[in-house]
């Protein structure tokens, strides 16, 4: 796809937000959005892992899977790369940046099974992005995911004291809010399309 990496970066945040347009990474988005502080920690971790794994998987795809003619194994290979990278980065952060580990590191195992990470790696292959575009798309998607979870956490924090029908409390009201947020983001879609 012939699109400027910078444009792709902004589009991934706003017009094609991975969570609000593709609804990927919903499990951790719903479960860790009770407090703004922990949402921020998870969001930063997702952003970091998304950016790096997009680059790593691009390299693995073009320099290992394509030359060996095994692109059909991309699903399993991408998952292995993501899982290994998350474990490695967890070990490094825990050892050398303890302060960061206590805010971000404990969320890393959650990210291994976050389908937004896997989704971004697949999108960049389907849409035939180059390396720079993949990094931009990964970083933009990560920031977009962070933005979405922070918005939900902020709204849920304000809703804590409000009277909500019993049947709608928790996941119910969170999904309704997410739907409204997604509608709001449609307003950005006229700017640029990357689907």
């Amino acid at each position, binding site marked *: 796809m012939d699109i400027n990496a910078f444009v792709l970066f902004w589009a991934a945040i706003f017009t094609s937000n991975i969570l609000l347009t593709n609804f990927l990474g919903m499990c951790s988005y719903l479960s860790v959005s009770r*407090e703004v*502080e*922990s949402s921020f*920690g998870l969001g930063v971790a997702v952003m970091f892992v998304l950016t790096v794994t997009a680059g790593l998987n691009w390299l*693995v795809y073009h320099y*290992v899977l394509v030359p*060996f003619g*095994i692109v059909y*194994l991309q699903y*399993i*290979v991408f998952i*292995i*790369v993501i899982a*290994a990278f998350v*474990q*490695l980065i967890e*070990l*490094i952060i*825990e*050892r050398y940046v*303890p302060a960061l580990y*206590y805010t971000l590191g*404990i969320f890393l195992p959650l990210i291994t099974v976050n389908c937004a990470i896997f989704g971004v790696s697949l999108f960049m292959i389907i849409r035939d992005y180059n390396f720079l575009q993949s990094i931009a798309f990964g970083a933009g998607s990560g920031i977009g995911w962070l933005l979405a979870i922070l918005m939900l956490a902020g709204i849920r924090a304000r809703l804590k004291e409000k009277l909500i029908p019993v049947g709608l409390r928790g996941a119910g009201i969170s999904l309704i809010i997410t739907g409204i947020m997604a509608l709001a983001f449609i307003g950005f879609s006229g700017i640029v399309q990357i689907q």
Partner: protein
Amino acid sequence: MILVILKDIATLCSISGVLAIILVIAHRFLNDYGIVKININGKKDINVKGGNSLLSSLADNKIFIPSACGGRGTCGACKCGITKGGGPLLPTERPLLTKEELITNTRLACQVKVKSDIYINIPENIFNIRKFNSKIVEIIDYTYDIKGVTFKLDAGEKIDFKAGQYIQLITQPYAKMRQSVSRAYSISSKPEEDDRIQLIIRYVPEGICTTWVHQQLKVGDEVSFTGPYGDFFLRDTDADILFVAGGSGKAPIKSILDHLQVVGTQRRMTYFFGARSKKDLYLTEEMKAFESVFEYFRYEPVLSQPKAEDNWDGKTGYVMPFLKETIRDPQNTEAYLCGSPGMIDAVSKALIAAGIAKDKIYFDSFG
């Protein structure tokens, strides 16, 4: 075709292998925190290999902190005080700690990693907790779904526990369950028999441990457990006592009554046992026999759904309505409840409404 498949598998294995080797090397070097010190209650130092959880580091040194969930950070049983070290509070601990515990530096031992010297406070009775090996010497079918299982400790071993406490049975892998798990069960035998314990275990469909006990274990099998745990035991006062139990909740109360028979008591005691129908009642004669042992004791089984063929002429319905008429002096009455969380919640509310102070209601919830 086969060669192509083999080539693909080899490539996939190579990628996985390279990543696995990187991880193993990284783990070897990055997770090596050397030998670190755990100071316990300012009295005792133990040296452990750094990098593991506090719970497992203590268990490696035969100090067993209770943990019903096996270290997954969901039960909150492994709380201990940390005065120095241990790093900041983790978001995985916060939901299981009360406001008071947050202020007093209480932490979950399963979540705290020991990477540098750490100073902890744990109750002295924790040191009493050990791992025991035993052999099953008796299995009794009390009802269609409740068994009494007696475990005799290895020769020369003795267990020092208070009537009402519990142990954690360690399952062995069986059938589809390849993992070993620990599950908590109250001791139903008396502390005076310190070379054995008896457990009363109710079958829970799909339950890992209860299925193992009910369908796999037989007399002569060797079984391990850790214990004793818990703060559910009879307080040494002269207050009247209300015991309320349901199902296998009879276990700790049987232990307390057996113990009282040995030491003697003049306290006024009433024991309500809730069950659905007559087929859920067990050890009734034994409990009734205590009425002639103690001067002031009454055993009252209450059936919530007696069947026509039961010919039941005892109390029916739930236990709650009978409590108020039994309580003579609410200010001087203690309650000991054991059973399902729902039963404990409902009975506690009824007791508080009847004037019994909240801190005089002791319970062992089978949640």
